[in-house]
């Protein structure tokens, strides 16, 4: 087992390991794209990759540079329109796992990818929802991947783009949200899950080298930690080989 890996690499491999083989995964842009394609080339050869662009069962020969990359079509099992992907796949409840990230997240896993500051007079205008709002609402479960920074892990969001557990564990049900909500948040410092009673984030494992203090410093609220806090399993040599050699991800691995 290699001891030379970056926080980026353990974040990606930790995310990839939350997937089970043969699941139907709704793949987003960026790190999720890398994590899902890593899982497919290692532990989960039967993952069904679905992209919001309408590519179904993609087997990209190159690491896609966007969720609409032509390599997602060439050799795919199918293509459908975007109204179909959102309705017949996501809203029909066929998506086992959706990936999300964001500029801000709160303790309930609610995400902001829309705006910093006031919506109508923003300090920073972010890209917006894309497919995130519907993934958060409709996927059976979601995985959130984002770097652990105090300005991102905030007490209060400037805007809720994509619902997590809102104000508590049963809030989704009360609002009639069909999807199950976030299963985990995978950061560059550790893996966090959600308490079944409160729907609140709980630190489950620390990545090798990361400390509880460091995580708390980078979290904008008093963070709960599991009584049995574990250490995250490091990336395997094979995972690192795929990331670095097959995906050419070394540059990003700082």
């Amino acid at each position, binding site marked *: 087992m290699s001891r030379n890996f970056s926080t980026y690499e353990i974040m990606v491999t930790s995310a990839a390991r939350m997937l089970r083989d043969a699941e139907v995964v709704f793949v987003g*842009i*960026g790190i999720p794209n890398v994590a899902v394609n890593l899982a497919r080339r290692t532990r989960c050869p039967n993952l069904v990759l679905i992209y*919001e*662009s*309408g*590519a179904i069962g993609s087997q990209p020969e190159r690491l896609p*540079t*966007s*969720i*609409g*990359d*032509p390599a*997602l*079509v*060439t050799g795919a099992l199918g*293509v*459908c*329109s*975007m*109204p179909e992907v*959102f309705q017949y796949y*996501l*809203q029909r409840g066929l998506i086992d796992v959706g990936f999300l990230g964001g500029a801000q997240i709160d303790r309930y896993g*609610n995400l902001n990818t*829309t705006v910093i500051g006031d*919506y*109508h007079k*923003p*300090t*920073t*205008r*972010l*890209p*917006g*929802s*894309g*497919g*995130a*709002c*519907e993934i*958060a*609402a*409709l996927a059976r479960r979601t995985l959130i991947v984002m770097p652990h920074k105090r300005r991102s892990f905030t007490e209060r969001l400037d*805007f*809720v*783009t*994509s*619902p997590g557990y*809102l104000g508590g564990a049963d*809030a*989704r049900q009360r*609002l*009639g*949200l*069909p999807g199950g909500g976030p299963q985990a948040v995978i950061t560059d410092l550790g893996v966090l899950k959600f308490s079944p009673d409160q729907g609140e984030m709980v630190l489950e494992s620390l990545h090798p080298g990361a400390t509880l203090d460091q995580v708390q410093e980078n979290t904008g609220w008093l963070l709960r930690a599991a009584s049995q806090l574990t250490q995250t399993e490091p990336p395997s040599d094979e995972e690192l080989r795929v990331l670095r050699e097959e995906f050419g991800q070394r540059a990003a691995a700082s």
Partner: protein
Amino acid sequence: MLKLATMQDAMNRLVHDGDIVAMEGFTHLIPFAAGHELIRQRRRELTLVRLTPDLIFDQMIAAGCARKLVFSWAGNPGVGSLHAFRRAVEHGFPRPLELEEYSHFGLTLRLQAGAAGVPFLPTRNFAGSDLPRVNPRICRVTCPHTGEELWSVPALTPDVAILHAQRADAEGNTQVWGLVGVHKEAAFAARRVVVVVEEVVAPEVIRRDPNRTLIPGFRVDAVVEEPFGAHPSYVQGYYDRDNDFYARWEEISRDAQSLARYLDEWVYGLADRRTYREKMPETVEGLRARQMLCAPVNYGY
């Protein structure tokens, strides 16, 4: 009826100041050539509609074409921000930009309702999101059969849809393969339709494979043949995405002057798409698609 037109003529005849203009294509088939011509013709006060504004709307916003944007994700995919968009939203430069914002699902559903000829469509999306709070067009609807509360978006029927495709015949019967995005819904929702294609083909080419037809000719007002017309986006089977240009746009667009110089050189400074192609022969050659043909199927009986 023959619908062939030059880009100049099609944009001049079919897109007017103040129109609601949908220019679709999800990563694939983005109608850059048409957008550049609208910038050249100094079209103004447009309401621009796209799920992903992408570089083309960033350019049109910088050029002052847009009064309002209807969208669901405004970034440079895999690179970062759309800086002209942000300058307009954050600083009102070169003019304020009104936003009407959805998620992808919400905006596709608006076009689908427009295409289907109903005033609304229901969705299980949006609960718990702040999007309905800032966009009153997203509202509640009750299922008349089960009593469940859902959300609803209203139909969107743009004045004109501009859609890039692989090929069409001269009557506008248009075929697409690879990602189809929300092309069909935009075409049926819009009042007028301009199709820009890599190749105009004989009607027999269309008729030999009718299942590939996305838009029937009678819905189409103009067909413009414009090879390489989707660059820097891509056309499956014709050319790859120019990922380098998408990365370079970050540098070009971060500064308003630099963006203006780009428009001067590559849009205002050129007469049409042919001169654009001729100005980047290595790029045209380097992005050319490999051949990976599918097998034919039998339409006989």
